[in-house]
Each structure stands twice: as structure tokens, then as C-alpha cells.
């Protein structure tokens, strides 16, 4: 890539940066025993930003030679905005990040990927009462250059690949759906030898047809690592993204560091630097190194996720969490890998200690408004007097920032991260967003139902 021509597009006026990327994606989609789509995508483009006035101006473009014009447009936009805004200081960085995956998916043929994906789909589709199994292989490889007029120049490779399945079972008019994922990092190795997991998920999907629909109400719930990861992402993670604080001064008070947010057993961390998960990366899209950040320590709010702008806004250290979906978007504050740290309890202890409640497995998406949040799960079991009983289905939970985190009263000793990332914010869906959790128990959560 011609970095010098990008460099020439920048001037010394105010703050300016350019991110230019080449995106190569491979996507294979299959349904039962049929290939639906194989595509190999090439996209190129850049995003320029300038800060001269009271806020950022920015502009997206495709061709390298348009970088200069994009910078000029950004400057013109920023100049329109009255005021004066500072960015938090960060070290000038010149670095090159080259990947060395354990099993490099770029070196594996499309045939091999397709055959393995089909193998798993057919395995699941053969299970009685499984109606549809849809499988997808995704591989996103990007080569990014980030430069700014402070002298930072970061060249970075990013790669994520994985299998994702959606299984639908059907009996008469009733259908049930589950999801399963492997991979979620730069190596293909997790895709091998998964027959057992695939079959178990298919059987679980069929078992859900015999489950009882949940009756709406309040329940004590035990969440597995997938549901726990989704829970902490929605219940708290989004609120720890400090661009929220640009919205209102009231929220700054609500989110004052040191405030009690949860029971003292809860520790929540975001760490882009842990290797091998969907939200793992070295530098963010402002050329800042992603930093392990304690968000909640022993129940107290201790930190948050920052861009250079938000760090400056509240006078805190930047954490390197400003990322964009691709060149069509401005970077915004996003989670890397968020997780609940492990605690003292075993799953058996939690079940035994639950008089009447639910054990919930498998995530199925969620959403938050900041104060209230909701998430869906694939299925669950009733717990009665410390014992697992019958299966229940159609489970969606809802909670409140100020009460639910305080109701976490048991945390498992076994932390697990999810294999599939993904999160939507401000029109940007980001596959590189990871989460995880040990088993956790939450008292009195609202579960929807008829």
C-alpha cells in the first residue's frame, strides 16, 4: 500500500488522520446438504478525520488518490463547528502488526472449508425432527494503515474466522431454533473435530420441541457462559462505553467512578489484549493500543472504555477502544472482550442453593437502552429444590442496570469466552466484539412469557 501518498494528504493544521483498509472476506453459506453461496469479496476504502473546530469532521472514500480530497472535506466540516476540542495525548506509535495464526485459514482451500461445513450441517440435518440447518463460514481479513499528523503510523493485519450454525426443529406447527459457533479468532484449528458438539446441539434443538413454554414472572436464574457473556455485554458493557458521557452531563453523575453498581463479588473486565477471541486486537482505529480495563472491581465502578475524545472529555486515560466496522464508518467506542471474572462457586453449588429457579443456556441476542436491557436465550431447565427438572422454552429476560447487577449473588469458578462475536451500535455491526462469563446466579429476574 502506498503509505507515502496518504501521508502527503495530511497537513499540520489541527488534528488529522486517515485509515485506509483492504478487506478480503470469504463467505460460504450452506443449508442442510446444499451450498447456497460462496463468495470472495474485495473491498478497499479509507476514512479521513479532522479536528480543527468544536468537533470532528470526517469523510469516507474508496480510492487512495481521493484521500487528499477526503481530508479537505473533513477539514471543511470541522471548521463549520464552533468551539474547540482537545484529544487526550497518546504516545506517537510506529508499528507493524503481522499475524501468525496457528492454523492459517488463508492457506486452507475453499473446498476443504466447504466440505467440513457441509459435513456438520448434514450431520445435524439427519437428526430426526431437525427441519433446517443453516451453516456459515466467515473469514474477514483486513490490512489496515492508520496515520495521523502527530506522526503515528500503524500498519495492522486483522483476521477472524469461524463457523456459525442455526438449527431449526419442527413438530407439527411448532418450531424451535438454536445457534452454535466455533472459531471466532484468527486460526482455523477450532473448526475440526466437532461432531459431538454438533450432534448435541441438534438433539437439544429437538428436545426443545417437548419443552414447556415459560410462564412469565420473576425467577432466580443461573446463566451459562454464553448467556452470562451476553448479559454483561448488554446489562453493563454498553454503558461503560464512554461516548455515552458526551450525551449528557446527567449521565456523568450517574456514572461517577467509585459508585456502587453491583454486589461486592462482581468484577468486570474488558481486555482486547487477551489472545484468541472475537474482540482481540492490538491497536484500535485511532492507533492506540487496546488496554485491559477494570470496569467494575468488587462491585464499584472503576473504569470505562475510551476513545481519545471521550478520555479527554472526562480527564481519564485513553484505553484504545475506538473502532469502526470498516472504512465507511467513523470509529466509535466499542467493547473488545468483556467478561465477568471468575468467582468461588461451582455450578453444582449454585443449582443446589436454588429453591425455585431456572438454568438458562445458549444466547440468542439482546439489546439495551442504557438503563434497561433485554436478552433472549435458546432454552432452559426448571430448578426445583436444588434439582434440575423439565425443559422450558421461549425465554426472554429483562433487567435494570441499577437493580440486576446487585442481584448477582453467586459466581462460578470457571470462566469461558464465547466463540462468536457481534454487536450492533449506531448502524455499525461489529463482528470483532467478544464476551464471556463463568456460571452466575442472579436473583429475581423478569422473564417474559404468556
Amino acid at each position, binding site marked *: 500500500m502506498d503509505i507515502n501518498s496518504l501521508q502527503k494528504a495530511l497537513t499540520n493544521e489541527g488534528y488529522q488522520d486517515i485509515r485506509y483498509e483492504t478487506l478480503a472476506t470469504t463467505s460460504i453459506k450452506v443449508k442442510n446438504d446444499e451450498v447456497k453461496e460462496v463468495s470472495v469479496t474485495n473491498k478497499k476504502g479509507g476514512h479521513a478525520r479532522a479536528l480543527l473546530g468544536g468537533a470532528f469532521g470526517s469523510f469516507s472514500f474508496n480510492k487512495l488518490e481521493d484521500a487528499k480530497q477526503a481530508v479537505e472535506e473533513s477539514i471543511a*466540516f470541522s471548521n463549520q463547528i464552533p468551539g474547540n476540542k482537545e484529544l487526550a495525548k497518546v504516545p506517537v506509535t510506529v508499528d507493524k502488526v503481522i499475524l501468525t495464526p496457528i492454523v492459517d485459514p488463508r492457506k486452507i482451500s475453499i*473446498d476443504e472449508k466447504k466440505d467440513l461445513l457441509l459435513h456438520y450441517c448434514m450431520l445435524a440435518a439427519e437428526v430426526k425432527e431437525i427441519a433446517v440447518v443453516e451453516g456459515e463460514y466467515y473469514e474477514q481479513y483486513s490490512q489496515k494503515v492508520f496515520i495521523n499528523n502527530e506522526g503515528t503510523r500503524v500498519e495492522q493485519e486483522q483476521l477472524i474466522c469461524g463457523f456459525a450454525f442455526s438449527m431449526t426443529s419442527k413438530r407439527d406447527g411448532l418450531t424451535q431454533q438454536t445457534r452454535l459457533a466455533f472459531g471466532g479468532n484468527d486460526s482455523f484449528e477450532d473448526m475440526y473435530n466437532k461432531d459431538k458438539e454438533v450432534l448435541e446441539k441438534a438433539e437439544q434443538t429437538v428436545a426443545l420441541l417437548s419443552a414447556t413454554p415459560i410462564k*412469565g414472572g420473576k425467577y432466580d436464574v443461573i446463566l451459562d457462559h454464553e448467556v452470562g457473556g451476553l448479559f454483561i455485554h448488554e446489562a453493563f458493557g454498553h454503558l461503560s462505553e464512554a461516548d455515552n458521557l458526551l450525551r449528557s452531563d446527567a449521565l456523568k453523575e450517574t456514572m461517577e467512578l467509585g459508585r456502587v453498581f453491583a454486589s461486592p463479588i462482581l468484577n468486570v473486565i474488558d481486555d482486547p489484549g487477551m489472545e484468541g477471541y472475537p474482540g482481540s486486537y492490538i491497536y484500535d482505529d485511532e492507533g492506540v493500543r487496546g488496554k485491559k480495563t477494570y470496569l467494575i472491581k468488587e462491585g464499584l465502578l472503576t473504569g470505562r472504555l475510551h476513545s481519545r475524545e471521550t478520555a479527554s472529555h472526562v480527564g481519564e486515560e485513553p484505553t484504545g477502544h475506538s473502532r469502526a466496522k470498516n472504512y465507511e464508518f467513523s470509529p466509535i467506542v466499542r467493547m473488545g472482550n468483556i467478561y465477568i471474572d471468575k468467582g468461588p462457586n461451582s455450578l453444582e453449588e449454585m443449582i443446589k442453593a436454588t429453591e425455585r429457579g431456572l438454568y438458562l443456556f445458549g444466547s440468542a441476542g439482546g439489546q439495551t437502552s442504557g438503563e434497561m436491557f433485554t*436478552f433472549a436465550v435458546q432454552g432452559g431447565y426448571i430448578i426445583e429444590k436444588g434439582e434440575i427438572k423439565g425443559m422450558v422454552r421461549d425465554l426472554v429476560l429483562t433487567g435494570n442496570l441499577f437493580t440486576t447487577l446487585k442481584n448477582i449473588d453467586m459466581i462460578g469458578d470457571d470462566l469461558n469466552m464465547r466463540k462468536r462475536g457481534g454487536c450492533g451500535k449506531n448502524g455499525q455491526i461489529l463482528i470483532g466484539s467478544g464476551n464471556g462469563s463463568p456460571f452466575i446466579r442472579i436473583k429475581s429476574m*423478569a*422473564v417474559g412469557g*404468556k
Partner: protein
Amino acid sequence: MRNLFENIVERCDEAELYKVENYSTGLSILNGGIQSVKGSKTLGLALRINKDGRYGSAVATSLDDESIIERAILSSQYQKEETLKFKNLPVEDVKCYDEKLASMSAEELTTEGLRILDLFKSIDESIIPDVQINRSVQEIHIINTSGFDHSYNRTQYEVRVMTKSKEGFMEVNSSIFSANFRAFTKEEVAAIIKKHKISQNRVNVPTGKMPVVFSGNAMGSLMTRLLSGVNAGNVIKKVSPLENKIGERIASEVITIKDHGKLENGFASCPFDDEGIPTNETVLVEKGILKNYLVSVSGEEKLNMKATGNAFKRTMFSNDIEDQPAIDSSNFLIEGTNQLADDELIKNIKKGIYIDSVMGTHTGNIPAGEYSLNIGCGYLIEDGKLVGKVMDTMVSGNIYEDLMKIEAVGTKLEPMGVIFYTMGYSPAILFNGLSVVGS
């Protein structure tokens, strides 16, 4: 584009080249000041081909990138033996381009944003809303080997206005989604402020069955489920509860639901879909009776139905050039018989809920019609009046039972919200006896 297409035709048996040129400008106003102004000028190309009895596809971001042909051929080699049909049907003009909107500068859009702030100030200085404005101008051009060679220009205008609670969280929101420019009005601001004030009274709701009004915005969550049901692809896969139900009653007789791709100045209006099929006004449900599915070219033969012009390159979460054309709404449009004004809708409700926005549209068993939604913004109705904002409350059910419970349809159309985008327009709808889980 024609040069590239000629090279494609030389190497493939049949082909379709889709080009979108996008020019957009957006701004965000937070905490009383401009937070960012952004622009974008990008190009996307998508190629679909048939070669040696198989179909393939590829995308690129430059007309000079001839590797798109190579990659499409590569893609075809892995596909099963099946080809795509490229059609050439006559195209009619649709009103989806607004010269005024297209020519507005970033300054003019900013001025409109600041004017909305001033409208709030003129009524109540203490309420400072977030305002987001996006304007995009697109040219879409499709050429195929059946002789189709058409392009159209369209504009899209989005405004989102949101007030915040005293803790700084979302309180009340309102939006415009349209193909033309329309000034946000003082009446709209006054309506937001009225609801904002009601919201300052937080109320708990008991668990139980009660009358529930979904606003036009909130209807997007229920219509997302109906869209899955009328999607011919799901009917063919046998995962739609509406399989073999054409001609049967699936909703109350007071409601009619259309998909209207030619709606004047509709946000998603356009002359043809992303496979080059002319858009239509398709009646899905007429006075409660299921009339049609939404069909793409690939579903035509399997169902012996005509394509409805609903194959679009987007999903619930993206509208990327690499998204394959798939069945989606153009503009859903909900109409009613004996429509009532919003005030009349709630006038006779002794105790119930009015829902303005929900969370969880994308979760749960959507194909089955199940929904379980957190009420992001909703109000308790007592004796025909909104009395306070409901907190930590969910509404759950299955649309295939609950569409039968519609008692009345309002008059004022709102954009139906679906995560990032809109799926059309609906008035407020009164349901009798939905399940509510309160706190």
C-alpha cells in the same frame, strides 16, 4: 460500467452487474452542541453470473477491479448446479428523489438540526434533546444479459430526536424516515415534550393481561415477525406458520397490511428491486385475510407466483454491497377500517399500556411469530389518559394469536422502527388483552 460489463459477458454465460454510488452527509447533535459532521462518497459493485450451469457472485469497490470477474467465476465453481434468472421487465418511474434534499449542503442540514434544538428551547429550556440527521443520495444502476439496463436516483432523509431522563438515559424518541426533506414541526416537538413530562412519573405495572396500544414505531417489532411469515423463502423452507394459509383469516378484520414499494416519497421506495424486478403494491393481509407472500425471482417457480420486487441487498443489521438480494420489506403500510385518532384509541381504556418503543425486536423465535419485548418507552394508561412511564416491563405473545386481538387502528402514520432502520409506516394499533410482565 459498460466496459466492465462487456468484459464480463465475454467470459460468462449470463450476468447481472449492479452498481451503487452513494453520497451521504450526516450530523449528530449531543448535549446542545454539534458532536460530529461526516460525509461519504463511495462506490459498490456486485456481480452475479451463470457459467457452465452454475451461478456465482462477487463484489468490488472500483470499476477498475476486473478481479471481480475471476472471483465470480471462482464462486460459481463451488455452487450446486443451479442458475439464476435475470429478467427484463418494463420499469415505471417512482417518486423517490427530492431535488431539494439532494442539494442541501452540510451547513443547511446543520441549520435544520439546530432549529430543532431551538424549537425545544422555545417550549421548555430544560429539555435538551439528541438530534441525528442523515441524508443520502444514491444512484443505482443494473445491467443484465437479458437486456435490462436501467438506473434510478433516490434520496433518503432520516431524523432521530431523543430526550433524556434526569439520569441521562433515553426518555422519549421520535423520527422521520422519508425520501424527501420535511421540516420537523413545532407540534412534533410539543408532543415529545408532553410525553417527556408524563415520563417523569415512573410507574410499576402489575403482571397480567391488559389492553395494549403499539405506536407506529413499536409496530416494527411485530411486523418483523409477519415479514418472516410472508417471506416466500421461509414458506418454501417450511418454517413459516403461513404455509398454505392464503385466503385464510390470520388477523382481525379491521386491519389491512401492504408492502408498497412505489409509495410516494417512502423511505424505501424505488422503481425496481436489487434484482431489477419492478416494485409493487402487494396486499399481504386484507381485512384480516392473508392474500400474498413476498416472492423473489428464485421463489417464482417453486410457488408458482410472480416476483413482487422485494429482493434487497440488506439485512436487519447491514446494507452492505456484499449482502445478497433477499426478501425484505420495501415500505410496509398498515391501514385500518374505521380508523380512530390516537386520543380516541386510548379513551375507553380503563387500565392498559401505550408502547412507543421496544427492545428485543431481533430476538426470540421470529419465524414462529413469538415475541417477548422489553418496553423501552411506554406509558401506563388509566381512565383513558397516559399517567406515567412504565419501567422494567415486558410484553409477550405470538403475533399469529395476537393479530386476531386487534380492536382498532389509529390514523397518524409513524415510521416503524427495526433496530437500525425502518420497515415502513404504521399508525398506532390497539390490541385487546396482551400478556404483560410487570415489576
